[in-house]
C-alpha cells in the first residue's frame, strides 16, 4: 500500500522540481570541481562577509547564517570544511582538524608547518603570562567559531590559488559568475563599505567590487585575470585581519561576560584565559564539549593530556548557569564524544561507503598505512589508528584536494540507529551512557574524525546528572 502510494507520489512531484532536475545542467563536474569552486567562492564571499562584518556568523558551525547563507547548503558545507583549525603551541601553531573553527590553544605538539605565533599577531605578553601561570599541558583556551581564512597564511593562500589556477575551467567560472551576481544582488556593497570603512581597512577589497574588474573577469571567463584578482583579494583579506579583530574583540568580551566568565586580562587579543572548572570541554579520546550558538559562536576547550584526562570529572555547573538565562532557552548545546562511535560506523551499511572509501585512501598512504596495520594486528590500537588517519586525511584533503569535503559531511543521523549501532559495538559501556542521553538529544551529528555530537538544550543539559559517570565510563 505504502509502496504504491509513494510511487504515485513520486510520479506526481511538482513539475518545476522534476524539470529543474531533469533539464538541469550539472554545474560542477565532480568533487575536485566542487572544491575549487568553493575555494574561489571563498575569495568573493569572504570579502563581502568582511565588509558586512558578519563573518563569524557566516562560518559559525551552530550559529546563525551570515552572508554565506546565499550559497546553496552543499556548497556552504564545502566552504565550511575548507576552513581549518589553527592550534597555538609555545612558539608555533599548526593547522589541523575538520572543524570550521579557529581553535586557538596552548599545549599540544609543536609543529612549525604553517606559521609562527608572531604571524598570528598574538599578544606575546599575554601568551607568556598564560604559559607562565599554567601547566603547559593543561591550559584552558578559548575556541572561537570564526573563519580561519582570516588567519590563513600566505603560503596557504598561494597553494590554494595555485591549485585553483591549475584546475579552473570555463564551467567553474560560469558558475562563479552566477554566484557573484547573486552576491551583488544580496549585498549593497557601497552601503556596507560606507558603514564599515572607518572600522575596517576595506579600501582595497572595496575596489575590487566597485571597479567591476572581478566581475568582468568572471563573466569573460578570463582565468588569468581572475586569478590575479583572487590572489590579491586573498592577501587583502589576510591584511585586514587585525582590524577585523579589533572590531570583534569587544563583542567577544561581551559574549564571554554573558557566559559569566571572567577575563584574566583585558586585551584586544582573541585569546582569553578562563579558570579551571568554568569550562566543560574535554578533547581527547572522549569527552564533553559545550558550544553556544550565540551571535559570535564560541566553544571552550580544555586540552589535557590523556593521562590527566582519565578520571577527570566534568562539572555541569556551567550548564546549569546557562539554563537560567532565558536567552539560552532555544540554544542547542553540543556534547561530543570522539572516536569510539566512529569506529563502529565503519562497518555499518549506512556509512560503509563513505568510511571505507576514506580508509581505503588512507591505507594507500605510507604514513597512515603503518597505523592501520598496527591496528589490524592489535584491536586495542584501532581507535588510535583511526583517529590518526581520520584527522590526517582531513588535513590532506585541505591541502591536496584529494577528497571532496562533502564526503566528510555525513550529516545528521537518526538517533535510534546510532544508539542501536553503539549498543552492538565493543564500546558497550559508552553506548549505555549514550542511551541515557537519548531522550534528551535533539539530533546527532557525526563528524569525520569520529565525533558524535549530541545536541541538547540548556535545560536538558542542566538536567544531565550523569555527566560525571559518563566521562568516567568513557575514561575507564
Amino acid at each position, binding site marked *: 500500500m505504502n509502496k504504491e*502510494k509513494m510511487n504515485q507520489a513520486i*510520479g506526481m*512531484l511538482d513539475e518545476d522540481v522534476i524539470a*529543474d532536475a531533469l533539464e*538541469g545542467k*550539472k554545474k560542477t563536474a565532480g568533487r575536485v570541481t566542487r572544491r575549487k569552486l568553493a575555494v574561489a567562492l571563498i575569495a568573493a564571499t569572504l570579502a563581502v562577509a568582511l565588509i558586512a562584518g558578519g563573518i563569524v556568523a557566516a562560518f559559525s558551525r551552530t550559529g546563525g547564517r551570515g552572508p554565506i547563507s546565499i550559497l546553496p547548503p552543499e556548497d556552504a558545507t564545502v566552504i565550511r570544511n575548507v576552513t581549518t583549525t589553527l592550534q597555538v603551541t609555545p612558539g608555533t601553531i599548526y593547522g589541523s582538524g575538520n572543524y570550521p573553527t579557529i581553535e586557538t590553544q596552548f599545549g599540544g605538539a609543536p609543529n612549525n608547518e604553517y606559521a609562527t605565533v608572531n604571524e598570528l599577531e598574538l599578544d606575546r605578553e599575554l601568551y607568556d603570562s598564560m604559559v607562565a601561570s599554567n601547566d603547559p599541558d593543561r591550559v584552558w583556551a578559548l575556541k572561537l567559531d570564526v573563519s580561519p581564512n582570516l588567519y590563513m597564511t600566505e603560503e596557504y593562500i598561494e597553494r590554494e590559488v595555485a591549485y585553483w589556477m591549475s584546475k579552473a575551467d570555463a564551467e567553474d567560472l560560469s558558475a562563479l559568475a552566477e554566484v557573484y551576481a547573486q552576491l551583488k544582488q544580496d549585498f549593497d556593497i557601497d552601503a556596507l563599505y560606507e558603514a564599515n570603512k572607518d572600522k575596517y581597512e576595506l579600501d582595497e577589497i572595496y575596489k575590487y567590487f566597485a571597479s567591476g574588474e572581478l566581475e568582468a573577469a568572471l563573466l569573460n571567463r578570463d582565468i588569468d585575470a581572475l586569478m590575479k584578482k583572487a590572489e590579491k583579494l586573498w592577501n587583502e583579506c589576510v591584511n585586514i585581519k587585525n582590524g577585523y579583530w579589533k572590531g570583534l574583540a569587544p563583542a567577544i568580551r561581551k559574549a564571554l561576560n554573558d557566559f559569566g566568565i571572567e577575563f584574566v586580562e583585558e586585551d584586544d587579543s582573541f585569546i582569553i584565559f578562563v579558570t579551571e572548572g568554568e569550562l566543560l570541554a574535554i578533547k581527547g579520546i572522549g569527552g564533553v564539549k559545550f558550544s553556544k550558538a550565540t551571535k559570535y559562536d564560541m566553544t571552550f576547550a580544555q586540552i589535557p593530556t590523556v593521562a590527566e584526562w582519565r578520571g577527570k570529572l566534568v562539572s555541569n555547573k556551567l550548564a546549569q548557569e546557562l539554563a537560567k538565562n532565558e536567552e539560552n532557552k532555544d540554544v542547542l548545546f553540543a556534547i561530543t564524544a570522539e572516536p569510539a562511535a566512529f569506529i563502529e560506523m565503519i562497518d555499518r551499511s549506512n556509512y560503509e561507503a563513505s568510511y571505507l*572509501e576514506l580508509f581505503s585512501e588512507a591505507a594507500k598512504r605510507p604514513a597512515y598505512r603503518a597505523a592501520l596495520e598496527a591496528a589490524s594486528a592489535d584491536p586495542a590500537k584501532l581507535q588510535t589508528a583511526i583517529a590518526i588517519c581520520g584527522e590526517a586525511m582531513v588535513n590532506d584533503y585541505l591541502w591536496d584536494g584529494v577528497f571532496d569535503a562533502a564526503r566528510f559531511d*555525513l550529516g545528521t543521523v537518526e538517533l535510534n540507529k546510532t544508539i542501536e549501532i553503539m549498543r552492538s559495538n565493543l564500546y558497550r559501556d559508552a553506548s549505555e551512557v549514550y542511551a541515557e542521553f537519548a531522550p534528551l538529544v535533539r539530533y546527532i551529528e557525526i563528524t569525520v574524525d569520529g565525533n558524535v555530537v549530541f545536541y541538547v538544550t540548556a535545560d536538558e543539559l542542566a538536567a544531565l546528572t550523569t555527566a560525571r559517570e559518563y566521562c568516567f565510563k568513557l575514561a575507564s
Partner: protein
Amino acid sequence: MDDKKIIELFFARDERALQEFSAKYGALCRKITRTILGNDLDAEECENDTYLSLWSSIPPARPHRLSAYAAKIARNHALRRLEYMNAQKRRAVLLPTEELAELIGVEEDRSAEELAKLISEFLRGVSDDERRVFVRHYFSLEPLEKISADEGFGVGKIKSMLFRMRQKLRIYLNKEGFQV
C-alpha cells in the same frame, strides 16, 4: 521552439506540436521509458503512448513545465507496462521508490497527492546536486551506476546522498504530521 509555442500548437490542434515536442523532448521520454523497461521496443511504444496522452490532455491542460509534464506521463506509461509485463511473468516489480515507502507508516491515510506536494517542497530545499540525484533515482528510476557515471560522483557517494536525503525526508514528513 520554446515550450510556450509548442503548447500553443497543441491548443491549435496542430500536429506540428508532436513533431516539435518529439524533436525537443522525445529523447527525454525515451530515456525514461527505456530506463524503466529495459528494452527499446517497449520503450518506443510507451513513448508513442506518451505522445497520444499529450495530444489528449493538452488542452485543456496547460503545463507549467512541458518537459516535466511529459516525463510524468512517460513514467506512468512505462510503469504500467512494466507492471503488466511482470504480472505475466509472475514476478514482483522492485522499484527504488520502495526505499521511500519505508519512510511513511502503514497507517498513514493521507493521499499520494498530498505526499507529492510535501516531497516537492522538501526537494526545493536541498541542493541542486541532491535534487538531481533524487529525481534521477526515484523519479526516472535510473540505476546508481548510471547516475554515478553522469554526475561524476562515486556510487558510494550517491548512496550516501540518497541515504541522507531519506533521513531528512523522514524528519520533514514527520514534522508535517505524517506517520513515520
